[in-house]
């Protein structure tokens, strides 16, 4: 091949252009208006494309609608919807109660709930623990002072402090915690009484004006 003439079309060293830039733009600008529809015929291509595009958008939209969890910022599982249930963390009352028990109660009533003979009453099988909710809640809320009889044994100088959110309390446990610890002691060590609801504790606490510790006689007057 001669260097004076253009290289052959298919020579890889120099790809020859077949169109000028100017005509490239103009021809395509003309084409972008679409081919003139001289025969007033339906053109298949636009219809087919319209069909495919609609399908893709329909699919995308459906997927989006189903798995977007209403665009909530708090849902991390695509099957879930936001706010269906009340999203309050559930605390196991037994676990919470056990924790509260080991924090405070254990010093007197002992890890096995047996207390100390003549000084601290036992909680196991106790008629106070397994009996009236009303009395039990009041004891923990406001405390208990003076002699008390448990399982036939008399303790002369009971001095249980107030645990509830009441004046003079050094503990200020929330109603939830009190309900939890009571539920715990009522179902541990073989005790099998019904659990105590937070609402019951709250109701009792709100009914009673500020007061000092209960005595046994006062409590026995309550059903």
């Amino acid at each position, binding site marked *: 091949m001669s260097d004076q003439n253009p290289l052959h079309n298919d020579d890889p*060293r120099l*790809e020859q252009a077949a169109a000028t830039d100017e005509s490239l733009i103009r021809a395509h600008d003309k084409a972008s208006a679409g081919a003139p529809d001289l025969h007033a015929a339906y053109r298949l291509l636009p219809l087919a494309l319209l069909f495919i595009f609609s399908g893709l958008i329909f699919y995308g939209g459906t997927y989006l609608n189903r798995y977007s969890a209403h*665009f909530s910022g708090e849902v991390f599982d695509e099957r879930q919807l936001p706010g269906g249930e009340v999203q309050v963390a559930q605390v196991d009352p037994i676990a919470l109660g056990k924790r509260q028990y080991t924090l405070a109660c254990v010093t007197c009533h002992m890890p096995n709930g047996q207390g100390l003979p003549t000084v601290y009453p036992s909680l196991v099988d106790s008629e106070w623990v397994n009996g009236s909710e009303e009395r039990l809640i009041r004891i923990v809320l406001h405390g208990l002072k003076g002699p008390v009889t448990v399982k036939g044994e008399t303790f002369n100088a009971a001095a249980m402090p107030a645990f509830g959110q009441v004046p003079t309390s050094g503990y200020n446990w929330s109603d939830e915690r009190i309900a939890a610890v009571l539920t715990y002691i009522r179902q541990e060590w073989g005790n099998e009484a019904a659990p105590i609801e937070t609402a019951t504790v709250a109701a009792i606490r709100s009914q009673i004006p500020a007061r000092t510790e209960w005595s046994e006689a006062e409590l026995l007057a309550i059903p």
Partner: protein
Amino acid sequence: MTTFSSPASAEVSEIDRSARWPLAFLIFASLGWLVASGVLALLNTLQILNPAFLADCEWLTFGRLQAIQESAFLYGWAVNAALAVGLWILVRLSAAPLRGGNFVAVGAVFWSLGLLLGLVGIATGHMSSFALFQLPAYIQPLMLAAFAAMAAPGVLAWTGRRERATFASQWYIVAALFLFPWAFSVAQVMLLFAPVRGVLQPIIATWYGQNFLSLFLGPVAVAALYYLLPKIKGQVLPAYDFAPYGFWALLIFSSWMGGRHLIGGPVPVWLPTVAIAAASMALIHHIVIGLNLRSLFAPGASLVLKFAAAGFAAYLLAGLVDAVFSMRGVALITHFTYFEQAQLQLFLAAFSLIIFAAIYYLGPRLLGVAWPSTTLIRAHFLASLIGFPVLVLVLALAGWRQGLELLDAEISLRAIAAHTRPWLQVAAAAQALLLFGNLTLFAHFARLLCAQRSGESLAQFRQPQALEATAS
């Protein structure tokens, strides 16, 4: 309509001369980075095969070397090459000499210099840990400024174009030049200089990464295809009246696709869901460009078009794979495995092949002289045509197996690594082959730079005909 003066209609003209040295430097730098990143990629794969390899060199731990390799490839090869090709096409289509060529040259020097400093920064422990955005904070503003300097002449070429009508290539390139700095600066501010809280960082990082790939690298490659095909074949693209839909579909949907990298992760679930839906809807773009550019698959004897066709096939496949393998049921297997790297490699292979085609086409025009050797071009084509598919395929297969085995808690990670090792050995071989191919291009371009320009060499360019508008 403007009538052209005679030099503007010549195949190598004042227009090319105005862009010659800035763009030649850009291409030379990009090819240098390509070769460097090829070497690093090979070393990095050897580290997977033998974890103790280079382990005592703190500068090149596996993680750091991976970040260095990725940054060298993306910011060294891909950005430089994309800018060179994009600017050249914009200038050609504007039919006016490049304005502000000095800005390109200065920007290119500082971009490469900044990148070099950034890579040393990663080696000494300042990587950002965000995929596709690994460069240290202190170098990023310089990169942004350098990019702006290089992109501004592109915008000037758009606003100063002689024809009022525009061509698809121009839309894609202008969009790329306009959107990348936006995403880049948002990422810099919100990730590095005033970092947002908690998982917002990975969210923004994936958003940036997606935009970088599909709204910067992707569009430049597509623009090159739109330009090369009618230029070489001399035919008006079929169904060209749909091209704007393809363009806007890419812009609207692809920028939402980043969340697919966070499927099952600690981000609000709507984000991956939007990404999965967007990946499917982005196929509109692929369908349209598939229609427009379908005659690429009959490339004839043209080696440029063969490169372009291979890249185009990879590009379409990458779009399809992104749509299919981001569905939750499949992502369950492919997420966190080599398969995701295969997806990235497939996209980058598409980009690279198309840009190679563009470089082979524009090189002689830019420098006014034909490539010195046919053999080198053929060798590069062969290496690429074997290397890329093998690399992507073995990574995909290794990743698929890895993903299936990860689902079974009875199979230890050690056993999984042992099972993927043979595949990765093949991957290393493919990387070596690609490195060889890219070296030939680098050497070839260096020879082209040194080749003598003369009236004789210019006489080798044939005067093109005007393109006849034909019904599509």
